[in-house]
């Protein structure tokens, strides 16, 4: 029980009657790297929305390290140790990569401490180290709006890590990247997996094969199956969902 970092029980979310998540059950061990796949509209992003407090579940509950996340606001959940990367990169464009990382790195995020405190030596070193890790040292003091799409993706992953969360939620980190950048991000995630629990959502099967150990398939708001990449790929239900998608696209 205690070594589960995330437990989701009978979770449902409906948007005006439409069930984006439907009686979803899911659990994940501490230290695990889990990949979630599923067709468009399966509810993957909504799943992250619930965990991070953006959307309230209609039914069921989500437990993080045994704590119920219901009706906690986004910043409280983040402070508990959950970091999230969005489907399209969301970094602060008018700030530099260094400033982006520094804001995430700040240990005390209430008004007074931020106003009166200065970045500590350790924090400055963390930021410099992270810039190195995500390969943006030379562009550390450029405005982030000048970064390429791939660099923004890496910067946002860096921002997650700077928060030093226990659980990283990464939504489509390689969408729109070149093969080379995809591999970079893959290696970055594998490195991070050594010290964090990570959920990665991805469509790119090549990439999934590169990083995946355990794969969960979502379909129409619930878990269709779970297993290693090979097991999942040979599962008849999964094949049907992916191949038969055009016929049931209104689901």
């Amino acid at each position: 029980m205690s070594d589960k970092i995330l437990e989701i029980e009978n979770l449902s979310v409906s948007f005006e009657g439409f069930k984006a998540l439907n009686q979803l059950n899911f659990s994940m061990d501490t230290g695990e790297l889990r990949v979630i796949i599923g067709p468009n509209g399966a509810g993957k992003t909504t799943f992250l929305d619930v965990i991070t407090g953006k959307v309230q579940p209609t039914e069921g509950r989500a437990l993080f390290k045994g704590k119920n996340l219901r009706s906690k606001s986004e910043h409280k959940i983040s402070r508990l140790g959950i970091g999230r990367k969005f489907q399209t990169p969301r970094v602060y464009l008018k700030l530099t990569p260094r400033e982006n990382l520094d804001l995430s790195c700040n240990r005390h995020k209430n008004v007074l401490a931020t106003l009166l405190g200065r970045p500590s030596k350790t924090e400055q070193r963390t930021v410099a180290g992270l810039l190195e890790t995500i390969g943006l040292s030379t562009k550390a003091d450029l405005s982030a709006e000048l970064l390429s799409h791939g660099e923004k993706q890496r910067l946002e992953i860096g921002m997650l890590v700077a928060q030093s969360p226990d659980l990283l939620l990464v939504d489509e980190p390689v969408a729109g990247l070149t093969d080379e950048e995809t591999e970079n991000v893959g290696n970055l995630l594998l490195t991070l997996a050594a010290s964090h629990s990570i959920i990665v959502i991805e469509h790119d099967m090549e990439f999934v094969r590169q990083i995946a150990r355990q794969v969960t398939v979502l379909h129409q708001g619930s878990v269709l199956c779970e297993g290693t990449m090979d097991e999942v790929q040979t599962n008849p239900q999964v094949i049907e969902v992916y191949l038969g998608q055009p016929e049931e696209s209104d689901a």
Partner: protein
Amino acid sequence: MTANTPPTDVQMHRRSRRPLLVEAGIVVAIALLILFAAPALLTAIGQEFRINMLGRFLALAIVALGIDLIWGYTGMLSLGHGVFFSLGGYGIAMFLQLQLPEGELPEFFTLYGVKDLPFFWQPFHSLPFSIAAIALVPALMGGVLGYLVFRNRIRGVYFSILTQAALIVFFNFFNSQQKLINGTNGLKTDTTKIFDVYTGSDQAQGIFYLLTVVLLVLAYVLCRWLTSGRVGKLLVAIRDDESRVRFSGYDPTGYKVLVFAVSAGLAGVAGALYTVQSGIISPKSMDIAFSIEMVIWVAVGGRASLVGAVVGALAVNFAKSILSEQFPDIWLFFQGALFLGVVTVLPGGFVGWLRNQGQDHLRSLFGRPRRVITYPSLAEDPEVDYERQNLRN
């Protein structure tokens, strides 16, 4: 700073401090020029009456700083800062109106047959209270209002409409309460006395001018402190993507309440300084147009630039007074055109233009190439630019 300390640390310290010292030097120099050179110059060219004007416009520059703080940096467009400005103005005017022999009431009260001073006038007998109230009443009101609004995540246009609605409510209240606050007529200050001198006298006006310059410098320092460092970066982050900030573990509410309260307090101080130099405060300062003008000053000078806010307030107001002396009918058209022009041609305002194109123009003037801070292909690719604009959400 002795020779024994490790050299790298000392150097780092010095390097980060030097630009600040230079800036402080420039600010003090400009302040001294405004204090001594400007009045002398205006007197020399026979435009003495413009000294008082300059004093009033410097007071308006303080509001502009506050507007820049919440709009330029944090992205909250307030169209109701006239309320805070007026609260400051009424605060000092009430104090001045009460500078009377024991037992007497301000004249307008007797006109409406009021025998007892309304309760909320009572504390304005005290100078320390009045001075504190000028900044703190608006700040407190801004803080409470801000808390209620921001906590409920009211943002953008809804926030602007709300501030405007508050402005209308306050205008109507002040405008209609003759027996409390002299209604439409407002409160006069130039015939009142402070420390046995008439407020309108040259001596008193000179001191108000000095005070305005000093307070403008202090307001600048306060805003500079707030907008540099982590909080400043966070304000920009809130402006550009507020919900992302939440997922990084920050609660934007506190930060927004803080800057809104500071901004309201600055408007109050400005209102008081403006009132004593113009001689009257009335509900007219809660006109919708005046609050919108405040925003125009900042837009013209340059959003998210403190210098821009000050320059914008001074430039637009001088343009206004000179143009409306010459051509009283066209000022409003001119103001509209100015705003449209700035928004469409110079979205970064005057200072924004100086920072970008201006620098390049200057460089090309001296035959040097344009600065390019990234791959040229990236900087000039229209497609990349399009994505930059549209990939935000």
